[in-house]
């Protein structure tokens, strides 16, 4: 079991991902925006972040940059949840510090298979 933080401003999407992960036995911390995620990082050990890209206030890329400056999340895998694979955007996300990405929408099995790769 791992502890995964899901950062997405869409409640339904976040809940869908969180439920899927919980169903697979993971402990999930939900954050509705980037700031909340940052607040939680200092207080909780996280094994993997799943971050939406487009969020109000602190967007996903800014969040990743900040996470990479904080000791607890410096090396933690961070997967971006995007809706398209645009090479330019991926370059930007990687420059910010993202580990990888997942293209929405995804099936629960795909989600679990992908995070299994990062977590083991």
């Amino acid at each position, binding site marked *: 079991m791992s502890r995964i933080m899901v950062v997405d*401003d*869409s*409640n*339904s*999407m976040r*809940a*869908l991902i969180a*439920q*899927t992960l919980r*169903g*697979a036995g993971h402990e999930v*911390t*939900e*954050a*509705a925006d980037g*700031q*909340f995620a940052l*607040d*939680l990082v*200092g*207080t*909780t*050990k996280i*094994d993997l972040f799943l971050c939406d890209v*487009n*969020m*109000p206030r602190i967007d996903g890329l800014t969040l990743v940059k900040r996470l*990479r400056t904080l*000791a607890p999340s*410096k*090396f*933690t*895998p*961070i997967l971006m*949840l995007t*809706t*398209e*694979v*645009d*090479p330019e955007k991926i*370059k930007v996300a*990687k420059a910010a*510090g*993202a*580990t*990888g*990405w997942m293209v*929405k*929408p*995804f*099936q*629960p*099995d795909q989600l*679990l298979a992908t995070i299994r*790769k*990062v977590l*083991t």
Partner: protein
Amino acid sequence: MSGLDAATFAALQATFLEESFEGLDRAEAGLLTLDTAVTDEVVGELFRAIHSIKGGAGAFGIDEITGLAHTMESVLDDVRSGAAPTPAMTAALLRGVDELRLALEERRAGRVASGAAHAGVCAALTAARGAAPRGVAPAPPVPVAPAVNAAPWRVEFAPLPHLMRNGNDPLRLLRELASLGGTVIAVDTSRLPRFEDLDPTECHLAWTLEVPGAVERAAIDEVFAWVDGDCTLAITRAAPVAADAPALAAIAADAPMATSERAGAPASREASAIGSIRVGVDKIDQLMNMIGELVITQSMLGELDGEGPVDAERLARLREGLSQLARNTRAMQESVVRLRSMPVGVVFGRIPRLVHDVGARLGKEVALELSGGTTELDKTVLEKLGDPLVHIVRNSIDHGIELPDARAAAGKPRHGTIRLHAEHRGSEIVIEVADDGRGLDLPRIRAKAVERGLIGADTALTDDETAKLIFAPGFSTAEVVSDVSGRGVGMDVVWRHIKELGGQVDVQSSPGAGTRTILRLPLTLAIIDGQLIRVLEHQYVVPLLSIVESVQIDPRRRARLAGGHDIYRVREQIVPIVDLGAALGLRPPGVATSSLLMIVETDGAPLGLIVDELLAQQQVVIKSLESNYQRVDGLAGATILGDGRVAFILDIVDLARHARRGRVGHADHEQAA
């Protein structure tokens, strides 16, 4: 969709539809302002609204709108990147919003829209964009015909030093190749710097691997998709090499130790896993003392085991020895419970920084007062307490404490105050988080709960009960009040965590004066002092600490209120009473003949339980019903008595709650023999 049950999925889909309608309303309002002014804020909001709908539509199986939403998103992405929106573009986007709304309304009604008009809108959008469509999904990789007998792939993989800084791990890549059947045939260590110069966050090794020729090239590419640009990679068809190459899987299995050491930070995370505990020497000494006592008792009892008659004197010494043994056992148990305890201050320690950061960001002045940090709590409980406390404090600052000017205007000090307090209260630890903010907007919470179907429109609730609705799962997932006045995201997390620990959450709010959240947690999770009672032929255990007294029922002090509530007057206090037999479904209400009333206290309020007989007091080890069977209303668990029979432990808080609502819980269970 697999992985979730249908009901959960349907509920989430309904939430998605509601969010989408709100998003479309915002998008429409935003589009209408584009003619006069284009601000980053409005465009960002517009883009996110459509983007969320597109992403969610796919996930929630609403495929008929993904094409339209995608085209709209592409247009908005241009605008976000600086393209000036033309009136034609705005008009087309507005048509798109209308079409999306129509399609979602169809879905809400359980139908699927034809989407016949979508193509027209998409064409208008593309035309307005004035160029060929951009941002379409990339062409799928050219499939390579699987060549069963093809030469194996040779993969030369040399990570650049910075590869691990993005959270990528070369071992993960090797493992994935291993899952395709790959083997490492060479490791290049030539780039390794001298040990003194080694930076553990950098990667200096390079690998040459061989992957079976039958594997598709695309599958290998996919393994390295995330590290494109972070490594040099050459994938070629190669002649087979020596077969005695070490199996990659074995290397990957051995290697984590090495990487952990190199990567530094991630390794320490593993080390701090839950398994160990730091214990003060005094506690160990105390336990040693107990064991010394136990040894003395044992030798005392051992002397009785000699030759000779079993006379009165010997029996008396035996009895004395046994009672001493009981004392020793008890003391040892307390010592061991203390070994597992840690001060609450460990968790409180996280809070000052949180208050500072969140307060500063929101422009609020917040003073924090901590008390009772030395209160000790079981380690397991403590570890689960961190998240709930963070959520509660954060919500207090975010939604409770007002901005300085607003506070001054309301006649309050400019700085808000949050108080965290912990204390032992009976068999519980009580942790309170109190703020002096604006309190909860109870009418709005109630309205939303009715709207969400959590309560009926005519359900009568006290203010405290209404406030507690913020913890209901359906309530916070919908984030219905967080943006206005209430507390939204995360409060169901609090509820879930505290419930898991067998605790209780209460919230009290006074408008304008603040909110108090009270967490009650059991001192230890395993053992309680219990009072055995009899109801008909069944035995139950009542936690001793919740019992105030037992009295003989005097019929003159008993009365029945309108609505069927029985009450009893104890000295100057009016106590609601419940026949335990009826509450547990063992007999119909009103037929109890017992004259024994046990007064228990929960949440500071008394409750009288009619029981048939008081039996022994003893310590019982709690066995979870949930993990062995399932949750049963009114029961906190079960225990095994000295004679091997199973007795249920009553959940007094739950019983009291039912009694106060005038509803008697109906537990359909049989006492196991």
